């Protein structure tokens, strides 16, 4: 139960950071800027070892926000470097996020073809 509560609070707070970025900065900040910012931010925090504690604490609360996607990119790259050397820097990130990316492309394509815009 505590785990679920923590996922709720941490995940919610990460989203609040994004909302503040959108509301308090220039109006030219679009959702695309937010998503790119969160992924790159996640990669950097993870590389500095600051994101793993958050994942240990909140589970999905830290992995479901897109910064978690950045975290798995970074951890993948670092692990692969340990195993394969320099080559791992290029393969590790994509390998560890392959499921998410392939799912996004495949399901995205399928639903885009299957459905039509409502409004």
């Amino acid at each position, binding site marked *: 139960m505590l785990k679920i509560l923590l996922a*709720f609070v941490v995940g919610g707070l990460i989203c609040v950071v994004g909302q503040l970025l959108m509301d308090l900065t220039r109006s030219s900040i679009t959702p*695309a800027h937010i*998503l790119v910012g969160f992924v790159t931010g996640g990669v950097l925090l993870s590389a500095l070892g600051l994101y793993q504690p958050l994942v240990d604490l909140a589970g999905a609360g830290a992995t*479901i926000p*897109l910064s*978690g996607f950045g975290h798995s990119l970074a951890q993948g790259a670092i692990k*692969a*470097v340990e195993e394969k050397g320099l080559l791992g820097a290029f393969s590790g990130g994509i390998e560890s996020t392959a499921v998410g990316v392939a799912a996004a492309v495949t399901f995205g394509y399928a639903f885009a*073809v299957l459905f039509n815009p409502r409004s």
Partner: protein
Amino acid sequence: MVAVKGNIEQQQEQESQREEYRLLVESVKPQHNVLKNCVMAFLVGGTICVIGQLFLDFFISQGMGEREAAAVTAGTMVFLGAFLTGIGVYDQIGKIGGAGSIIPITGFANSIVAPAMEFKREGFLFGVGAKLFTVAGPVLVYGIITSCLVGIIYYLLQ
């Protein structure tokens, strides 16, 4: 020389007029309700993460390893986000939740399906195929580049 000076003065006057107008616009502009937006982002974003946590726990209880379960959870959430976009529900969630619906990976799926679906009439190559990556493209580009850099730096520091 006189003409040049005139130009500069004119430019300065125009700049000050624009600045004055910018302040006027700021003063009449309706303000975002930042507090309400943040509360809604918190609730919607938190709820999506809880749904993710429930899936994660379920997959782990089925005997998956932690990393594997996390990947399958991400895939499941992407499926849900894409499906809700297809049936026209996710944009309604977005109106309420703001960043709370954009930042979770379901929002990433939404940003993939929405343009692809809407540009279907422009064909399957330059419509669906290309528009699928309107937002996902930049996300992957910058995510992958930074992770490669992180890997390279880690290699050099080893």
